């Protein structure tokens, strides 16, 4: 009676179910690869079935229980599935553009993905200032090393390429996005003065369209074009150095009415005056947070160790033997040919 009640539960440990769930996961991956609209469910459902199957297999399948290496491998697979789920709940991905001389503000971060258990409050504890950066280019406009200097409590850190800035569990990676920014000051006729910056598109990727728009506090639309003094060399090596950023600003106040300003120059507009203060550069970062990364790595390695141990015990000491009748039949056919 008890045994028959256990049967349906034991079937959850079936190797055939493992095969079906793995095949379903494969189908889900292929479906998501070619049609990305429903990717999460197509992967999550087979993974959930696999996790349940794994759990029961570890309890009921003597083959797994009695092979320490195989058991270790399967426990690690289950742990990886749990860690992936935890990662989805607690992780965060974002991007950020920060200008030279600017202090990090969590409001600048554009959140791309945020797990329901992730609080962005921790970002408020991060303090750093973007300093100068250099990006090397070689012939054919191929990007080389990026050296981005950050100031943290008076200390200088250089990050870039394979080296992120780690703080409070968040990782800031430099990206290929970086460009010019112009500092502007507005002096209204009402006596109010404000200062801010306009970021232009990524440079040198979009060196041919360094355009942006801005509405003055008086409501006038300005079409701006930044004209860099830095020439993009296609056939030689060069360096983009933020400390040497320079250029002029072309402002279109009305269709066909343009004026070019140099740093320090002012332009009279409706309701006030605009000053082009100086040229700076901005650096683009991707922001990543996943507190389970180290666990992922450790569990993966332990799993591979388990698998290796299993194969070492299984294959290392065993002589190659006949496996199935079909092979014997094949051999028989050959030998009689």
């Amino acid at each position, binding site marked *: 009676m008890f045994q028959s009640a256990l049967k349906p539960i034991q079937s959850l440990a079936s*190797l*055939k179910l*493992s*095969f079906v769930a*793995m*095949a379903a*996961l*494969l189908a889900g*991956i*292929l479906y*998501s*690869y070619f049609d990305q609209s429903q*990717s999460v469910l197509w992967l999550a459902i087979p993974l959930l079935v696999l996790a349940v199957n794994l759990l029961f297999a570890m309890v009921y399948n003597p083959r797994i229980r009695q092979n320490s290496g195989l058991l270790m491998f399967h426990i690690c697979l289950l742990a990886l599935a749990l860690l992936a789920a935890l990662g989805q709940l607690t992780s965060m*991905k974002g991007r950020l553009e920060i200008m030279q001389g600017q202090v990090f503000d969590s409001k600048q971060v554009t959140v791309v993905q945020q797990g329901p258990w992730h609080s962005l409050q921790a970002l408020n504890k991060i303090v750093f200032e973007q300093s100068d950066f250099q990006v090397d280019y*070689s012939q054919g*406009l*191929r*990007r*080389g*090393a*990026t050296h981005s200097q950050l100031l943290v409590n008076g200390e200088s850190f250089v990050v*870039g*390429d*394979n*080296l*992120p800035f780690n703080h409070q569990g968040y*990782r800031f*990676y430099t*990206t*290929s996005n970086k460009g010019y920014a112009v500092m502007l000051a507005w002096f209204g006729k009402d006596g109010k003065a404000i200062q801010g910056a306009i970021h232009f598109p990524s440079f040198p990727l979009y060196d041919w369209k360094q355009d942006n728009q801005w509405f003055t506090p008086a409501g006038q639309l300005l079409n701006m074009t930044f004209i860099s003094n830095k020439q993009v060399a296609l056939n030689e090596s060069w360096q983009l150095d933020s400390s040497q950023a320079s250029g002029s600003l072309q402002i279109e106040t009305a269709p066909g009415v343009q004026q070019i300003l140099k740093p320090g120059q002012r332009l009279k507009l409706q309701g006030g005056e605009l000053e082009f203060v100086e040229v700076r550069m901005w650096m683009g970062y*991707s922001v*990543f947070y*996943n507190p389970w*990364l180290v666990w*992922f*790595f450790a569990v*993966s*390695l332990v*799993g*591979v160790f388990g*698998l*290796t141990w299993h*194969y070492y015990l299984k*294959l290392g000491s065993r002589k*190659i*033997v*006949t*496996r*199935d009748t*079909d*092979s*014997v039949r*094949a*051999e028989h*056919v*050959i*030998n009689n*040919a």
Partner: protein
Amino acid sequence: MLEAEKAFFYFSVAVFITATIINWAGLIFNKPLPKTLLASIIVAVLAAAISITLRWLQAGHGPFMTLYDVLLSNLFTLGFIFLLTYMLVVRSRPAALFVLPLLSLMALWAATTDMAPVLLPETYATVLLWIHVGVGKIFLGLCLTAFGLAAVLLMRYSIPMAGFKQMPATTELDEMAWRFMAVAFVFHSLMLISGAVWAQDAWGRFWAWDSLETWAFITWLVLGLSLHARVTWSLPAWAGWLMIILVFMLAMLTFLGVPFSSIGPHKGIM
């Protein structure tokens, strides 16, 4: 491109093709494998190694970037892994019937591609690249030998030839092919792990389902499925051989097709 580098490469291609002909002639005319076959594999692998070394010295970095780089490095690494297998696991030698033509085809394919070296992106300047690529090559080398054995077994099963009588028993070759697949599974797992660590450092994410990651995972999953299927059901041996061939084809697609047909971080684009 240096003339000497080119000369050693073409010499390697010629020797791999010669070795293929010697091997197949032995099967067709039912002759035992001559010692010149082993010697020719050694010479072909050595020539490929010299060609890579000269290219490395000229470019200043290893063969990681272009399709030619990858094909040339595969010619050397897969040839070297197979050479070790050929010398250490004597009973796996029948695999050479399909491994050598495949290496020859790979070499001829390389000869048709653009051989000019390109610069290494900054994110590739890490020891993780060496670990990732290294374990990946070992996986592919083991998978290649398993593929060779599976292809020989399928041929033996469907086209009886007198030359097959010199080979070890079908069951023995079958068991050996699956052993290579099992060890390949371990190395593929290591490749995925080291790749994830590298991707985290290089692109700020450890897994993003980009084309190469997706196809590498599909290969891992199908390999896992094959190993599972073999213990779950008493499949006919030929079905197992077909599964090994499928896994190898997926691996080749992942290594040589996807990185050069998709736009993604793995391509090293700025």
